[in-house]
């Protein structure tokens, strides 16, 4: 299958100015300013094949948005090769953006004062979409996203969820083969999130649209993406299947105990001594958490011992969540990709 995105040793550096302390420092800053060169994106390599849905995750300031902005031709890379849809995004910007759709969750693409359908009409002209194509394609989009009743309202009167659905529709007017979504579900309620996810899945199946998605909400990624690329301090620290990541890091279970009487952590530890268990206490609601390997036998052993020793109010068995896996990876640093 052909590669839609090919990025080699992509790098973007920013100058970070720091100001000196005090009034004297301020005067010196007038003439020579201190600055450090900070790589926001540090020699990353990514390839994305046609039809893939890739989740791009990382903490705030990890370089996600900077990468997306380079891939969409907004920013010029400091160095490295970048080919998207067979073009260099920055060099052939005007021709290139015709082949992509972009949604920035925190910024509106629509015109604030005019009705949604007027925005659509204008964008249709901007992207030179023919009437037939527009009718055929957008009818479907409008129906699926359920924005028919919103079309004659000005954007400023829409709620965030309504606006996001319209933004998504606007990004698809020219039916681009590649879609960039930067935090598309930020601040949305569950129903709207589900609707947007379903819609994305549908266009991915119908048109084989490639989708690159950044989000803080890992449930988006779990619902949509086979593959995740994880970024930390401008470097790719994991690139592979979400499933593998879970298998490799999610091989633990957590047992949550709440006891009727006040119990000391030491005594609990003593009860399970000899078994490979780590104990943590959540002081707030007096929950004792046993972290152990995911082996049925071991789990029942631990439960049996604890139940025999103390009076139990509540017991829960939890699988490690994706969020926790991600947190663990960030704490440890890099992941060996395998």
């Amino acid at each position, binding site marked *: 299958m052909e590669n839609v995105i090919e990025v080699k040793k992509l790098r973007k550096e920013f100058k970070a*100015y720091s100001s000196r302390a005090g009034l004297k420092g301020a005067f010196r800053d007038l003439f020579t300013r201190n600055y450090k060169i900070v790589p926001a994106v540090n020699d990353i390599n990514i390839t994305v094949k046609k039809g893939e849905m890739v989740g791009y995750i990382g903490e705030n300031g990890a370089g996600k948005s900077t990468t997306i902005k380079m891939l969409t031709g907004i*920013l010029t890379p400091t160095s490295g090769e970048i080919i998207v849809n067979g073009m260099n995004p920055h060099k052939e910007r*005007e021709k290139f953006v015709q082949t992509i759709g972009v949604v920035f969750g925190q910024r509106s693409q629509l015109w604030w004062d005019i009705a949604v359908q007027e925005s659509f009409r204008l964008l249709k002209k901007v992207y030179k979409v023919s009437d037939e194509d527009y009718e055929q394609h957008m009818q479907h989009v409008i129906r699926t996203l359920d924005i028919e009743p919103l079309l004659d309202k000005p954007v400023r009167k829409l709620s965030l969820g309504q606006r996001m659905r319209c933004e998504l529709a606007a990004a698809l007017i020219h039916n681009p083969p590649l879609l960039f979504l930067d935090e598309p579900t930020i601040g949305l309620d569950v129903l709207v999130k589900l609707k947007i996810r379903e819609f994305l899945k549908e266009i991915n199946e119908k048109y084989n649209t490639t989708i690159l998605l950044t989000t803080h909400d890992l449930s988006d990624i779990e619902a949509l993406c086979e593959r995740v690329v994880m970024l930390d301090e401008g470097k790719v620290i994991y690139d592979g299947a979400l499933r593998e990541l879970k298998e490799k890091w999610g091989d633990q279970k957590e047992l949550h105990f709440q006891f009727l009487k006040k119990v000391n952590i030491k005594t609990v530890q003593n009860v399970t001594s000899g078994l490979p268990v780590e104990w943590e206490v959540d002081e707030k609601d007096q929950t004792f958490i046993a972290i152990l390997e995911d082996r049925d036998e071991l789990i029942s052993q631990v439960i049996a011992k604890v139940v025999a020793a103390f009076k139990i109010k509540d017991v829960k068995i939890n699988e490690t969540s994706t969020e926790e896996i991600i947190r663990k990876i960030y704490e440890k640093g890099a992941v060996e990709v395998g």
Partner: protein
Amino acid sequence: MFYLSMFFQYLSQYLKTRLQYRADVFVEFLSDLLSQAINLVFILVVFGHTDLLNGWNRDEIIFIYGFFLVPFAVFSAFFNIWDFNERYIVKGELDRILTRPIHSLFQIILERLELESLLGAITGLAVMFYAGSRLGIRIDWYDPILFIIFVIGGALVYGGVFIMLACISFWADARTSLMPMMYNISNYGRYPVNIYNKLIRFVLTWILPFAFVGVYPAAFFLDKEDWYWYSFLTPFIGVLFFILSIWLWNQGVKKYRGAGN
């Protein structure tokens, strides 16, 4: 062709938006007229006492002022980029512009149309006719054509210089804007440049060529033959500065750093 059709698309959108706020349009129209009238009174008062200023009489100076208002109105209508730094760089609106398949500067011009400003041209014309009739200026058949060419040239000079100033935002991350200062300097172009000293005259002719918005082209209609050479230079200076500004803009866009989320 595509750009022309886009212009009309945006224009019709702009009109629709404006018509939504009827009261607003009306108030703005009134306040514009009022400020034009104040301008007019001001210039009549100021120049009421001076009969001659370095070889220019009162009506000639008023004529130049009237002429200046026309390209300035055209400029204000199409190059409404005073807040470029705030709106597009600091707030990051340029991100959106850059993901659309039209030249970025053209998009911004289209988005920021402010056609109400064209009203100023009417005041300008009125002032010119008033001063012109007192001076007994004849209108030849080629005058309207040259007038339009000079107005476009003058508007392009203004536009070019302001685009170049806006481009500074691409390099400097300062939030302060040079625009207010520039607005003051640009006002010097309304008065005959030979009343200033040589240095200011040189600056207003070749560096920040605001003299080509007012005095130089107006001198042609006032039959000041020793200024003709400058008058006919107007459209060329306009096109030159405008092309330079587009080139600078294209360089600047490459340096755009984007706004953080």
